[in-house]
């Protein structure tokens, strides 16, 4: 595997008509997010398995928990990104986009409540 050693050169290159600045790439591996997703994955599996195998009323409750985890996981991920970009990444523009996305989902929920 070839790696560049020493000063980062060239630091800029052109791709698809735009300059990509390698000095601005995020030095982040998302270890906490990976751990959180693995945990939610296991929780959803266990809850769904309980919803499959256990008798009522545990069965219905476990199924509801499994559905809740599967629905909440991607939204938690977006919220996590918004907070990280705003407070740690200094990327307020995309933090606002992520907050806007959560607002769209929230507005959809309100409309669903009104039209129920």
């Amino acid at each position: 595997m070839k790696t560049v050693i020493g000063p980062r050169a060239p630091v800029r290159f052109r791709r698809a008509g735009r300059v990509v600045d390698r000095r601005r790439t995020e030095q982040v591996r998302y270890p906490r997010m990976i751990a959180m997703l693995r945990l939610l994955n296991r929780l959803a599996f266990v809850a769904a398995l309980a919803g499959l195998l256990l008798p009522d009323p545990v069965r219905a409750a476990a199924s509801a928990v499994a559905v809740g985890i599967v629905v909440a996981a991607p939204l938690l991920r977006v919220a996590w990104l918004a907070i990280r970009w705003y407070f740690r990444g200094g990327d307020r523009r995309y933090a606002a986009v992520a907050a806007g996305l959560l607002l769209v989902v929230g507005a959809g929920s309100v409309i669903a409540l009104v039209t129920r």
Partner: protein
Amino acid sequence: MAMLLLALATSAAGAFGGLGGAIILVPVLVLTGMPAAQAAPLGLLSVASGSLAAGPTQLAERTVHHRLGVTTETAASAGAVAGALLSGAVGEAFLTRFLAVVALAAAAASALRRDVAGRLIERPPDIDLGEERGSLAGIYPVQDGATPYAATRLPAGLAVMLTAGLVAGMAGASGGFIKTPATTEIMKVPVKVAASTTTFTVGITSAAALIVFAIHGRINLDHAAPVIVGSLVGGQIGARLQARFAPAAVRAALGVVLVVVAGILFVR
């Protein structure tokens, strides 16, 4: 048990073929007599489960562009909410035919799919890999090298994502067969990043529509548990098979199955 096996088989085949399981699961459920309006939420549960299962691996590979995903998802989620609300207002016959059209579109997307990679460059230091702060550009690792990219034509991409979200909300399919080609062909993002980012975003699209379905009382909890278990396990099996074998033959077979299923849905 039948629902579990069906979800497992469709998720494994869908993940192996790169189409996702819901595009097969929902039409098959409708063919077995389930109303399309009830099958759609189960399809989206399958999509959300698959997205959750794939998340950790794709994050570790650093092929997901979160800023691109979050940006395009604002349009897709709005479409998904609109689709979920509309699906409760239109008739069963319309939904079934809409599902048939979506299955045909997925088959066409599968047949036309190109596994195009981006330009390869000398691999930069490990810390330089990933997405660029404050933009829709980045670099992702490819064995001995790396591929730089920068998304283009965002407004056109957003318009297509809105359509993909609408399809997901109405039909219960992931819309990934629209999102990935749009990201590669319109926004000029390499297919590996486009596919990983799509897997991330279809989870959000599904969540947005599933909240609407849950509030409207359209999620059948008896069927939800086997679908989630089957999709989590099937998605893992499909991803491992994809890493070992070339998925082109499976993709072609899935395309044929989708055309047949769409034909049956049309003439029902």
